[in-house]
């Protein structure tokens, strides 16, 4: 398109390019997270589940932390009821993600059910890194779908191969997950109050880890956001345009919105 608009500077790619980048990031997240499914599948069968039960957890429960908690309790000799409760405790944060994502995603019908099913740490995080609804939707669906595909494939591989597969931490996959979460958080840390909230939440999560059952430390950390949100706003910090990327993309917007 030969519009007489100034060429965008190198750090402000066009909206279409940003969407492509987001979708590529979704694929990367899906692959990195999915590989971890090997360790879930292997751990599940080592804990006494059969491969079918491991697959039902990955396909239907589909939320990694809860799945590891479930097989952890079973493997540790706990009751089936205890396993179910531990997994549900870890799943509470998915409810919070729904609250955050609801305004950006389609309601009702099959897609409404699909968005609920794909609501996990990774899809919510990539959605949160978007600066408008279109980017949030692209992030949510790409991370959600790719994680689902690879998580289930690799769960099956891990469940069938069992202990023949080496520990995924030898490949640094646990550090890859930490790297992915910090990379998703990074663009949100442009303002000082965001840094304070992130650091305070990290601190609360670590301090409460030895004290609370699995799953609750992350929820305790979520209270930091609640407290910060309830504080009287002393600046435009949380104003409606706070998520907009400063930059000359606004002019390019019309080109993409067909």
């Amino acid at each position, binding site marked *: 398109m030969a519009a007489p608009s100034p060429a965008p500077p190198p750090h402000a790619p066009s909206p279409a390019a940003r969407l492509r980048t987001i979708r590529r990031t979704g694929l990367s997240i899906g692959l990195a997270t999915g590989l971890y499914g090997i360790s879930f599948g292997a751990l599940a069968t080592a804990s006494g589940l059969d491969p079918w039960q491991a697959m039902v957890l990955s396909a*239907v429960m589909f939320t990694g932390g809860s799945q590891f908690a479930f097989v952890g309790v079973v493997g540790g000799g706990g009751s089936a009821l205890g396993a179910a409760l531990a997994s549900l405790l870890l799943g509470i944060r998915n*409810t919070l993600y*729904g609250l955050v994502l609801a305004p950006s995603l389609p*309601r009702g019908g099959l897609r409404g059910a699909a968005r609920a099913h794909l609501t996990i740490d990774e899809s919510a995080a990539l959605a949160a890194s978007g600066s408008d609804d279109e980017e949030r939707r692209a992030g949510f669906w790409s991370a959600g779908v790719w994680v689902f595909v690879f998580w289930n494939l690799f769960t099956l591989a891990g469940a069938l191969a069992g202990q023949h597969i080496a520990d995924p931490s030898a490949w*640094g996959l646990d*550090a890859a997950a930490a790297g992915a979460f910090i*990379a998703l958080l990074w663009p949100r840390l442009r303002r000082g109050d965001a840094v304070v909230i992130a*650091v305070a939440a990290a601190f609360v999560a670590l301090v409460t880890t030895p004290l609370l059952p699995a799953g609750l430390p992350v929820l305790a950390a979520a209270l930091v*956001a609640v407290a910060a949100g309830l504080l009287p706003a002393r600046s435009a910090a949380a104003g409606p345009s706070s998520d907009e990327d400063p930059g000359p993309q606004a002019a390019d917007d019309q080109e993409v919105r067909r």
Partner: protein
Amino acid sequence: MSLLWVAVIAASVLSFVQKWIGYQAPQDVLERPRISRITRLLPIALLGALVATQTATSGAEIVLDARLAGLGVAIVLLVLRAPFLVVVIGAAVTAAGLRALGWA
């Protein structure tokens, strides 16, 4: 059907309900200024907590190991404006390398 199967299916279905229920909050409640401020800040707090727990916890314990070095490398790469995939691979290679060398 074994008790374990019942638990697998019940926990899986309830896990879906947990996800679904978050979307059912009425929109006008979510649009109240305080609530919308909280929902905008929630991802920051949750991600901060996930970074911390993924890096430095193992079960109910604080464990400092090769993951911390991986996180450090990830932050350096982010400061250098590296793309997402480079950051993730950098963290993984760092941790895997340190473990292979037996240093962490």
